[in-house]
């Protein structure tokens, strides 16, 4: 299974993260998104006329939407992550998958503006991000009240993976996550999941692993 990938793309990271958690090995094909704009070149456009990444290719199957890729990876190798135990759960997973592009457009748009100097109305992007983050915070605080750490049901699902990266990297777009305590604890729960992998700007829980032993033969003493 081949992923057309860019290391700094939160959308590509969603797919890498889900694959790592599900234990699916991906053949990564780096795309020079910046500065090369390779995603707008003919060979990539031939695969995905929309000119976006990620692109996931598995035999004859070509997927160009990250939420569909999460569904595919979970259905293949980690069906519990589909979160479809009840009709309501299934609908709520769909709800968050459909919500996630708002985070991409707002938090992600602000990030592209600030990091890669892409055009955009930064005030409007941040205001839109604030609205989306407030909705997410309210929903997660209601989940915590019921003893749950994740968006849907009792266990993590593709809904969490779909929403997590653009939220975690919102500070790259000048958006402070300080006002969102439930989001902070939710991100912490995701970062502590078995199989979790990092991307630049999103680190694992250092405290979850043992303290490194002192270097033998180092300068100690």
């Amino acid at each position, binding site marked *: 299974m081949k992923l057309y990938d860019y290391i700094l793309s939160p959308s590509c990271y969603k797919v890498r993260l889900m694959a790592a958690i599900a234990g699916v090995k991906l053949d990564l094909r780096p795309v020079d998104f910046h500065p090369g704009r390779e995603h707008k070149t003919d060979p990539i456009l031939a695969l995905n006329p929309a000119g976006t990444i990620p692109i996931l290719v598995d035999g004859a199957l070509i997927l160009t939407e990250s939420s569909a890729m999460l569904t595919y990876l979970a259905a293949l190798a980690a069906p519990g992550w589909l979160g479809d135990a009840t009709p309501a759960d299934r609908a709520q997973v769909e709800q968050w998958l459909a919500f996630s592009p708002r985070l991409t457009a707002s938090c992600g748009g602000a990030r592209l503006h600030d990091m890669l100097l892409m055009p955009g109305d930064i005030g409007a992007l941040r205001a839109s991000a604030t609205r989306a983050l*407030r909705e997410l915070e*309210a929903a997660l*605080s*209601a989940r*915590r*009240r*019921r003893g749950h750490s994740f968006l849907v049901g009792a266990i993590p699902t593709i809904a969490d993976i779909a929403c997590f990266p653009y939220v975690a990297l919102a500070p790259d777009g000048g958006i402070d996550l*300080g*006002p969102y*305590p*439930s989001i*902070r*604890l939710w991100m*912490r729960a995701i970062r502590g999941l078995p199989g979790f992998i990092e991307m630049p700007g999103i*680190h694992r*829980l*250092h*405290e979850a692993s043992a*303290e*490194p032993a*002192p*270097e033998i033969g*180092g*300068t*100690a*003493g």
Partner: protein
Amino acid sequence: MTTTWTAAALSQDVPAGTAAPGRLGDRDLAIWRSASGKIAAWADRCPHRGMRLSHGFVRGEALSCIYHGWRYGQTGQCIKIPAHPGLEPPDAIRVPAFAVAEASGVIWVADGAPATAPPAFEGFTGFRSLQVDAPASVVAEALGGKGDAIRAALGPTPAVALIQPLGPDRSGLHLLAPLSAAPEALDALSVAAEDLRRRAEAGQKGRAA
């Protein structure tokens, strides 16, 4: 100098083994709780390279900076520099610590030593913190009260609202509800608080225009 207590966060939002950002006046705080449950509020700046300690991680009873792992004990004293494992860190490497106390599920902080304990609201506990893009006075007015601790009428469930000034056009709103309140009652309070925030922010925009 602030020698009164400021509501800075809710106890439920800083569980054992975690660190969170906070504010006291115009200063950034790292509020963190050790594995055994001890709460602390420090300047949010590692003395080494200035990294925010609220990005750091807690192991046992110490907070470590995420950047180079400098480790600080309960008093703010640096106790370990991983790149120099044999070095006993000098006393001068210390993070400024603020007074901190918990009551009714609220984390109160102060610069200096307040003469009294922070206020307790018998039978109530903190359940939600929100940030409002409006000054404290506008939030108080929207709540129908005055001052920084208001018995709020936000529907059938009684609530206490603690307002934390965060500069000229921003406030923290820490909400307390009865300990006995069911999740559904808290959901309704939460919705009412968001409604109040919309009104306060709309009023603020109207004023600014």
